[in-house]
């Protein structure tokens, strides 16, 4: 779960990382009297908002209100701005980068730092990055921070100051179960280091440990949200063939084979390892609402039995008939029984993926 900047900063502050004293508004009237200069930052879950015009400065209350009314409701890369974070403008001497991520390759945490902050970290050449894997059972040790400080060219005072921040960010990363905890830029001000921006992604599988954390709804289509609420892995795509399969890998492979034959998937729906008729029914309900011309069902029966899935499908469409034809590819345990059950209802059922795909592409209007 990706958090908004203002939420991430709140958490950073709790873990001892200095952040600007700001407040959040949802309409321009909430702007407090401006003394000096303020920055108005659009709260969206997408990067590059500065370039997109989502961050503006103001030096009077009136100007701040005017800019706020322009920013609120604005569209940034498909995301609507609903909230602004208002902060005093900070005096920046230099920008740095600091983050902890889950590193798939080492299966440990990774600390990344650079003296080139404020830009996309992917664009910084490797030799300008400080990278060190951190063992999850050992955590951050002083030698790592020393090495980081030398690499970044920090003086003694700055080294002392950044130590606090590295420990603070490690504490955010581990205690909040983050996939990513990032400060970009970490800015050097006359008063020391400060997190000018904050990015925090909480591991979805760990949310049960953070029940009190405010939930952030990702941008889903209404249908994706509905599927999510029912615990179904579902992604809406832009083709016209509604794909249902069991298992994520098999569902992906199904999309690939369709495309190889000139078809285009309109949905990715993974039934998972279940043949639970209730789940099958819900899956067909979801797919029935998707804008597609044909449903393509690909089942490999292993633990799941083909005939049980077939029965579930028949029950589902009897209760709520589909407006589009179904093509099924059924393979594995009890496949003959499964195909028979579907054929009785006039559903085309095949054993090989390619035969079934060709039929589905034909019904969907060809390549």
């Amino acid at each position, binding site marked *: 779960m990706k958090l908004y900047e203002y939420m991430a900063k709140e958490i950073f502050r709790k873990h001892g990382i200095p952040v600007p004293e700001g407040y959040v508004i949802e309409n321009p009237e909430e702007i407090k009297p401006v003394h000096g200069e303020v920055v108005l930052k659009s709260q969206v879950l997408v990067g590059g908002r500065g370039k997109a015009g989502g961050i503006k400065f103001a030096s009077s209350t009136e100007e701040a209100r005017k800019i706020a009314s322009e920013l609120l409701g604005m569209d940034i890369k498909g995301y609507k701005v609903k909230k602004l974070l208002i902060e005093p403008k900070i005096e920046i001497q230099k920008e740095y980068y600091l983050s902890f991520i*889950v590193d*798939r*390759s080492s*299966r*440990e*945490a990774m600390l990344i730092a650079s003296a080139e902050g404020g830009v996309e970290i*992917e664009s910084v050449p490797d030799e300008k990055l400080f990278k060190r894997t951190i*063992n*999850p*059972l050992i955590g951050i040790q002083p030698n790592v921070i020393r090495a980081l400080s030398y690499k970044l060219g920090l003086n003694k005072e700055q080294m002392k100051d950044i130590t606090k921040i590295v420990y603070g960010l490690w504490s955010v990363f*581990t205690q909040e*179960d983050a*996939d990513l905890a990032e400060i970009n830029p970490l800015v050097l001000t006359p008063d020391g280091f400060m997190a000018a921006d904050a990015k925090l992604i909480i*591991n*979805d*599988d*760990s949310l*049960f*440990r953070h029940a009190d954390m405010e939930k952030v709804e990702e941008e889903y289509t209404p249908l994706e949200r509905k599927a999510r609420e029912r615990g179904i*892995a579902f*992604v809406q*795509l832009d083709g016209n063939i509604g794909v249902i*399969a*069991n*298992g*994520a*890998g*098999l*569902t*992906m*492979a199904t*999309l*690939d*084979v*369709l*495309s*190889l034959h000139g078809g285009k*998937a309109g949905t*990715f729906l*993974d039934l998972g*390892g279940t043949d639970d008729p209730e789940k099958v029914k819900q899956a067909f309900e979801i797919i029935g609402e998707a804008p597609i011309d044909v449903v393509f069902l690909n089942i*490999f*029966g*292993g*633990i799941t039995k083909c005939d049980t899935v077939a029965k579930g499908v028949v029950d589902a469409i009897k209760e709520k008939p589909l407006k589009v034809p179904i093509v099924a590819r059924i*393979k*594995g*345990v009890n496949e003959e029984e499964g195909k028979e059950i579907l054929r009785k209802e006039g559903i085309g059922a095949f054993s*090989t*993926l*390619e035969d079934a795909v060709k039929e589905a592409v034909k019904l969907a209007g060809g390549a």
Partner: protein
Amino acid sequence: MAILVDKNTKVLVQGITGHQGRYHTMAMKEFGTNVVAGVTPGKGGQKVEGVPVFNTVQEAVNETGANTSIVFVPAPFTMDAVLESIDAGIKLVVTITEHVPVHDAMKMISYAKMKGSRIIGPNCPGLASPGKAKVGILPNLIFKEGNVGVVSRSGTLTYEIVNSLTEAGIGQSTTVGIGGDPVIGSNFIEILDLFEKDPETEKIVMVGEIGGTAEEEAAEFIKEHVSKPVYAYIAGRTAPPGKRMGHAGAIVTRGRGTAESKIRALESAGVKVARIPTEIADMIKRD
């Protein structure tokens, strides 16, 4: 020989009294696996499918000599269960449970390394050596004894590919489902290394998917260290960027983890990459 599990494997089932644990204890026994013990705290003294249940892993190990564990314990308690097995001296811990918190996964994998144990998973279907033993939830009927080693990040897609091998008369030495999470105990490289060293394995099938760079790293390893022929299939060629395709690990972000990059890396390492899953069987037959 096969790898990791064979006739000497003595399996302990953690979470044996749950629905999944019970069902798969039966299925593993039907496969011919020597399931010697189950553990569910508070249920010691019971029997499930004729298998004695203990309160702690240590007790189960002492009484039965179990050397491999399979974990069906719910995600919030998975790390604790895995650590209990490692501390009791279990050398192979197969973690079926999905949705394990990623920081728990990192910790238990790190601890296993320290103690000389190996974790498969989490979020994996386990592994099977036909004619010897199965420690997992893979369907029994798809396998046939033989000389092809299979390693995969996927579940059902693996069953599909193994089944097509079996139908083409191609048997398997061991099939290992390493799991679909971003952080897993055993990766492609470690399993490829075991297959390379296993005299019974002659050819290797690798099933990858989009997300991360595990396939690219495996390709580098194959180039340097694998002499046996490798065949691969990569799922997710048509997956749009930024969308998580079911598995937590299957997501293309900022141009990283695309199927094209993986296929290119594998092909340049001399791996034959199939365009559709069932094509692997045809490719092996032709060679």
